[in-house]
């Protein structure tokens, strides 16, 4: 394999580039990125970046030295527009064609938009560009903000806006946010965090329409010249808003694959891969938010860092020689609480508070099925969570005698890392 093209200069794309070099690939490495930036970390965008605690330099995922070591050609600000049916050529937005022997698809997911006109003052939060625009608006004095969507992005953004002194309301179409992720009991706890942060949460109603005022500047009359003034809910209420932030999920960015032979999942649109991130074409692998790996599409930071080492190993081998055996993990910081979750939850799992309590706002909860712990959730309990997460990954470490909160070492001191761990790359 002489040339490998990584499409997506993202977290997953960068980890794929690192894995390629780390695993001895010394051919031509091209990284194609739709955004003009070198890879950066997205999780802080809704948190420390928005509140001004972190700057752009702190978001950078690689420095000049590492970039030089990777010896890659970076084609940034250059969206890919196509992949030929054999997966041997990537078509770029400027009309160029990159001939390649291997492809890593790491184009991520893009934010879902509300239907209707794009008024000024309506934001999404996915890219650095999105976050810069929102941060600028948030610096212009107190605003009335409506956040549409009570998921993690919506909650974190609402939390950051409230911390900056804005008046914030979150709208959630479901009876409670985060039920699919956490189950009803734990979702109810998290919903209560909004109130703790001084944010109103309105559940069980959708958005009927956005209202906008007259043109403020310019005379073009396009939607962009009209600023949003309110959010009309399906129950008839009208909420005044200077700013609207839409956080209603993301969909895999696969439009550029429409001419390829790759199959997309009928429900969520992810690129269908086997357990080793390999698509139907052995020289094309997919990682990160865009990939449906062994039936699971995870929009998790950790998945984007764990999948590439496995994907690249299989890419270089020309077939699936290794599969992912990791436990899904995500975290969220909101309203001063750190929420961490690991495992595979299903409806019907029972939830038991293993440490702490909901009342004190700090606890470890275990999700159990048929007598086994299948997932764990912690709020401000990082130490027992880490132990429980490792036990999910490697049941041999699950020793009750380690419940002493000061003891954080496993009994043997040896815990083989699962293959595909971030440290491999």
């Amino acid at each position: 394999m002489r040339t490998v093209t990584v499409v997506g200069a993202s977290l997953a794309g960068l980890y794929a580039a690192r894995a390629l070099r780390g695993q001895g690939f010394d051919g031509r490495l091209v990284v194609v990125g739709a955004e003009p930036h070198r890879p950066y970390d997205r999780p802080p965008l809704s948190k420390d970046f928005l509140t001004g605690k972190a700057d752009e330099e702190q978001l950078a995922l690689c420095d000049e030295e590492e970039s030089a070591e990777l010896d890659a050609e970076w084609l940034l600000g250059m969206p890919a527009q196509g992949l030929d049916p054999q997966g041997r050529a990537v078509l770029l937005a400027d009309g160029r064609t990159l001939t390649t022997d291997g492809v890593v698809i790491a184009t991520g997911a893009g934010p879902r938009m509300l239907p209707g006109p794009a008024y000024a003052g309506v934001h999404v939060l996915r890219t650095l560009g999105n976050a810069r625009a929102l941060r600028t608006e948030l610096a212009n004095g107190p605003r009335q903000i409506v956040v549409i969507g009570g998921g993690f992005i919506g909650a974190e953004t609402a939390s950051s806006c409230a911390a900056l002194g804005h008046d914030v309301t979150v709208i959630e179409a479901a009876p409670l946010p985060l039920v699919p992720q956490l189950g009803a009991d734990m979702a109810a706890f998290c919903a209560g965090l909004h109130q703790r942060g001084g944010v109103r949460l309105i559940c069980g109603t959708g958005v009927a329409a956005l209202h906008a005022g007259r043109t403020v500047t310019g005379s073009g009359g396009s939607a962009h010249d009209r600023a949003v003034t309110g959010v009309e809910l399906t129950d008839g209420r009208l909420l005044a808003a200077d700013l609207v932030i839409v956080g209603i999920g993301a969909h895999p960015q696969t439009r550029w694959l429409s001419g390829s032979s790759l199959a997309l999942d009928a429900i969520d649109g992810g690129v269908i891969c086997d357990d080793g991130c390999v698509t139907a074409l052995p020289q094309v692998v997919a990682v990160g938010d865009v990939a449906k790996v062994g039936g699971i599409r995870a929009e998790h930071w950790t998945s984007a860092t764990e999948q590439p080492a496995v994907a690249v190993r299989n890419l270089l081998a020309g077939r699936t020689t290794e599969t992912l055996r990791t436990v899904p993990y995500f975290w969220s910081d909101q309203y001063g609480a750190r929420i961490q979750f690991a495992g595979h939850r299903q409806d019907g799992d029972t939830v038991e508070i293993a440490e702490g309590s909901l009342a004190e706002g700090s606890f470890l909860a275990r999700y159990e099925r048929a007598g086994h712990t299948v997932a764990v959730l912690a709020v401000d309990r990082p130490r027992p969570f880490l132990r429980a997460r490792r036990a999910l990954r490697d049941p041999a470490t699950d020793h009750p005698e380690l419940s002493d909160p000061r003891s954080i070492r496993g009994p043997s001191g040896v815990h083989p890392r699962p293959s595909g761990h971030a440290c491999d790359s």
Partner: protein
Amino acid sequence: MIPVCRLQDLPEGASVRIDTTPPIAVFHADGELFAVDDTCTHQDASLSDGWLEGASVECPLHAASFDLRTGMPLCLPARRALRTHQVTVDDGMVVVRVAADVCQVAEEGSAA
């Protein structure tokens, strides 16, 4: 010089966080005591809540790992080293000397 706790209260495998600015974590690992900055150099997480493996600690948030002897990151996502601090046991009491103090003492020593 910061007194931390009695050595007997910090058994092998245990850790303690000192609320200095920035906070410092003290570990009893691999038969030794180590003191390093508590906050992961990647993002805001307390390493004293981390997972010890030999003389290294894994961050509880994103699994960055650091060598406690040198403060050097052992794997991504961390890329910057932690400050290390001198830690001693004085009459059964664990004592940390913050790195900046060490520099100051060294300068005074060389001037004398």
